[in-house]
């Protein structure tokens, strides 16, 4: 089984895939390939992989004519632009940056007259909150990737674009497309993408277990890649005729959680907690998305610390963690100052673990 730690090997091999392609193939079919990266964490190097795309990836913008591309990572912006502009009919794809979401740049984006928004769920929510009411009223369709649509996200979408159709696919930067939706499926429910085999490892009594995916990337077999998400298979044949359907439950209980467009990792949490003199049994963090009328979705982190184990006050612990805890590549303090996250909530408790989640130090609260 491959996990992210072991993925460097795959990345090396996929670089070789690109190197091994005849130059003529690259020249002729460059758009079939894409170099993707992830920022890594404080403990790991950035990852890199070359993806080979299937036609299905290019069909996401078929109903869009003027699309705003909203993604944080630049390679994700590029990917969404590439997918958009290869639609059957002409498409204008406008990339936006967080820095563009305030006057006067937002006025230019308003005047673009977008009919759709595509990108990372939290970023899309933020764009919708920045756009004028008139600009939002033209949005008919949204294509969401990269993050489970939470209750907080849905609240923003319902308020800003109540008539828009929500669509999306299930993919990871490292592996590529994993699941696709048909019109019969609700959000977070997918069929396996073309060429992808998916397994549910160690399902519990509700059928939920870890997603393992396999596919060929060019001539290279990626087998049993550990996505880090929890899934369950739905036992019915879909109205479209597809026999395999699965629901993504989120990243409950794993070592990294996405919240408000950022990623909190257990490695990072443990590192900061260790520096604060806390033992592994002494703390637990809940992460949640909270709807915010100004920026869309704001991240909320709640750190529970066992009573009596730290000489620091709650405010001192909050300050200590905010200055050191990384959310993707920025400190929590920087994200609090920019308004993307609320100040860290710290509470002392006699009992911080319930029985079912005894070993979980990092938990998504709003899935």
């Amino acid at each position, binding site marked *: 089984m491959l996990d992210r730690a072991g993925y460097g090997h795959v990345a090396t091999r996929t670089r070789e895939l690109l190197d091994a392609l005849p130059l003529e193939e690259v020249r002729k079919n460059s758009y079939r390939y894409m*170099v993707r990266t992830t920022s890594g964490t404080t403990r790991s190097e950035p990852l890199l992989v070359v993806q080979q795309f299937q036609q299905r990836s290019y069909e996401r913008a078929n109903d869009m004519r003027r699309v705003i591309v909203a993604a944080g990572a630049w390679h994700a912006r590029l990917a969404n632009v590439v997918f958009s502009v290869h639609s059957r009919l002409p498409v204008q794809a406008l990339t936006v940056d967080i820095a563009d979401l305030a006057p006067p740049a937002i006025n230019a984006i308003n005047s673009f007259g977008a009919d759709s928004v595509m990108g990372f769920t939290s970023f899309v929510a933020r764009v919708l909150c920045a756009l004028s009411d008139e600009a939002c009223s033209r949005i008919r369709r949204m294509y969401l990737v990269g993050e489970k649509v939470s209750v907080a996200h849905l609240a923003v979408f319902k308020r800003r674009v109540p008539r828009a159709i929500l669509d999306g696919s299930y993919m990871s930067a490292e592996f590529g497309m994993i699941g696709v939706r048909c019109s019969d499926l609700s959000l977070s429910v997918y069929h396996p993408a073309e060429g992808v085999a998916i397994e549910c490892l160690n399902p519990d009594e509700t059928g939920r277990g870890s997603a393992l995916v396999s596919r060929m990337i060019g001539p290279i077999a990626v087998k049993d890649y550990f996505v880090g998400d929890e899934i369950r298979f739905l036992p019915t044949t879909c109205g479209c005729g597809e026999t395999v359907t699965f629901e993504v439950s989120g990243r409950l209980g794993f070592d990294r959680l996405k919240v408000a467009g950022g990623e909190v990792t257990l490695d990072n949490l443990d590192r900061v907690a260790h520096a604060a003199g806390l033992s592994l049994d002494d703390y637990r963090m809940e992460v949640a998305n909270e709807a915010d009328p100004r920026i869309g979705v704001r991240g909320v982190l709640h750190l529970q610390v066992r009573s009596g184990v730290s000489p620091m006050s709650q405010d001192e612990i909050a300050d200590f963690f905010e200055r050191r805890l990384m959310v993707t590549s920025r400190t929590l303090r920087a994200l609090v100052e920019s308004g993307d996250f609320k100040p860290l909530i710290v509470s002392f408790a006699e009992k911080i673990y319930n029985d079912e989640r005894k070993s979980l130090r990092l938990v998504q609260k709003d899935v």
Partner: protein
Amino acid sequence: MTREELQSAVGESTCGFYRSLWENSISAGIVRRADFFQTPIQERRYKNVSSLALIAGSAEEPFVIEWALEDLREESVGDVPFGRKPLVCFRSPHNAVLWSVWCYEHGMVPLIGERNPAVTLATARLLLVDGIITDSASLHDIVPLVEELRLSYVVVVDQSFDVALLNSLRTKVYPVLWLPETGIIGTGELRGNDLTFAADPAVLLEHGDLVVTKLRLLVTPIIRFQTHPKTQIIGGGRFSVRASTVRHL
């Protein structure tokens, strides 16, 4: 396409952006960034094709511009020995995406640099990029990479150039004078401390302040567009850029 053919095509278009400017002109038909700022992109589109749109202009007067894929394909940086996997590294995310799409249109699979230079350097090493397309500011960040990897080229795309830095690189450097609105204006040649550009074959130049006409029907055509790099026309389509004065438009 000649200038007359371009003006004729624009004059006959259903889009009235240039007609309106020419009829109300108080500046001898010169088009400025302010004209783009004051006109929404949908009112200055002269063709409906798939395109990449991005925010350009100044922080005070930003506007949307559009580049059709077919037009990016026509944009040439000259005789550069391109391979298959360049690093595209720009300070502006918009320019980074635009030049990455340019790479695709020219048969390459780019690695787009991220905002964090450390991530860019690390992933470029993992991919073993074979060349770099960058701007002057980003070039300072990635000098170690240029020294470390066996690169075939470094294309520097900008409005100003650090000649001393370009001269210090051991990889062949290709300077390109470029604005997001106009595309490539000219390709440069570095001889000692002299950086001289040859105007792009599809570009007409006027005046020392570089008024540009692009002889292609772009989504928003460029006809007598006022740019601000301080230049000296040498003649025969060649011009030089005074590097220290052209950083900010």
